């Protein structure tokens, strides 16, 4: 794998000339694609370019023949969605690439890092190792579904309060995992929290803040 842009990449980007605006996840992603199109960005962040170039199309499978698509109804954060999808699409890719629920993150895509953690029927799972078609009728909660309107979930508030993050990429997975951990009653000691959060890796090493946040959230049940 190289860090060079793929053939045809620049011409695709040349088409988007509008001024970038921050705000919603969709516009953030569009903005990244656009800055990636400048030569300066090519020199500085070739790795980012690569992911941006793959951003538009569902990348659950490479090029080549497709599987017959399957209809599936997903219930996510209380809303129902009907999708026709290639059965190879992971739940994570369906959330991010089809439904624009980009809060759940793709880290390793192999169930090792926990960035993709979501709650299915109240239990935490790695959405990268689960196919979307397996979740017909399941109640799925993502990071987008935790807050109550403008009021943050106590675990979200505690992560803010205790700096339970640095770059923030693993944070949606950490928070979903922590919400489940509290429900499972596995937050009774520092060691127990560490062990039961071991499926969520933080490469910035914000573990001290994460631990403090979970301990505080335990004392503040959801209103």
């Amino acid at each position, binding site marked *: 794998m190289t860090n060079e842009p793929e053939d045809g990449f620049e011409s695709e980007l040349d088409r988007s000339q509008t001024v970038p605006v921050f705000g919603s996840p969709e516009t953030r992603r569009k903005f990244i694609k656009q800055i990636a199109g400048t030569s300066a960005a090519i020199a500085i962040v070739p790795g980012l370019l690569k992911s941006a170039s793959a951003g538009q199309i569902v990348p659950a499978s490479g090029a080549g023949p497709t*599987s017959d698509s399957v209809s599936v109804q997903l219930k996510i954060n209380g809303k129902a969605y009907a999708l026709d999808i290639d059965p190879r699409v992971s739940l994570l890719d369906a959330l991010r690439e089809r439904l624009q629920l980009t809060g759940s993150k793709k880290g390793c895509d192999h169930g090792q890092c926990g960035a993709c953690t979501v709650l299915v029927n109240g239990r935490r*799972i790695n959405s990268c190792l*689960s*196919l979307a*078609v397996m979740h017909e009728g399941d109640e799925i909660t993502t990071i987008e579904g935790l807050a109550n309107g403008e009021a943050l979930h106590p675990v979200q508030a505690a992560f803010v309060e205790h700096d339970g993050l640095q770059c923030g990429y693993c944070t949606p997975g950490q928070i979903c995992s922590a919400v489940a*951990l509290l429900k499972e009653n596995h937050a009774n000691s520092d060691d127990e929290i560490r062990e039961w959060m071991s499926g969520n890796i933080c490469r910035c090493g914000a573990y001290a803040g994460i631990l403090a946040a979970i301990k505080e959230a335990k004392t503040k049940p959801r209103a």
Partner: protein
Amino acid sequence: MNPFSYSRAVNASDAVTAISGKPNGKFLGGGTNLVDLMKMGVETPNELVDINRLPLGQIEELPDKRVRIGALARNSDVAEHELIKTRYPFLVQALLSGASPQLRNMATVGGNLLQRTRCYYFYDPAFPACNKRKPGSGCGALDGYNRIHAILGQSDQCIATHPSDMCVALAALDAIVRVRGPSGEREIAFAEFHRLPGDTPERDTNLPPGELIIAVDLPVMPFAARSHYLKVRDRASYAFALVSVAAALDLGPAKRIKDARIALGGVAHKPWRAHTAEKKLMGQAASEKTFRDAAETELAMAKGYKYNAFKIELAKRAIVRALSRVVEMS
């Protein structure tokens, strides 16, 4: 990922019918290993039959007091079940020492039995040589980086290890695997379920294609209430075993050993039942010396390679420590 067609079965007989005559079809359970291997291009099924809706998630006591675990019970459900916690504590410890909470919420008992090795040369098709992935291509691990590889029961075709923790405890328990095929249900003794590599390392188990695991039965074994699972690994959590030991002891007066169960993980192509050590312990008084002697006997046939010879001494010490823990509980 290879394209495949997807279907959902609602009962065991439909699932078996759906896959019958399709050698390239597979049952899809939790997906934690299969989906990962499909992403890697190691597994390339052209048909998946989703069995997650089958009513096989129960954990129950049978009339004869044995315990039946449905094949779709998730690892976390088994680890939290009162019957398992009180009667087979080392099975709970084994389950909770494996993977992460998220993976344990997904992974099924049946799928855990069918996990494939984490040998790097098997898991990454960029390596040309792997007799398990591509029969006849050679073994990359034999002269490669073989730190996590086997020291017992291996062949010059394959030195991969079985990755499961749960299966180590099930081997010590002499569990029974219940399977369903086109001609009905049958039982497979746990010791007969997984295979040593010999010259057919591409076959991990004796489960024929098209047969579905429906349950695992645990025998009545009162002394398993005092049992211990010791896992030695590179990290304190969320890592595969370098060596693990599932141990249970039935102790009489003066700590005389009436029965012993020892199984090892991380050392062989299958969960390794330490029959030689068990036999050596019978009738002896439990002590560190007896345990060490038994461990020496078991590991006498072990063979290490460039990077994993440390496992031989590690396995001996792990056996002694696991058995000592069980005595402390008594």
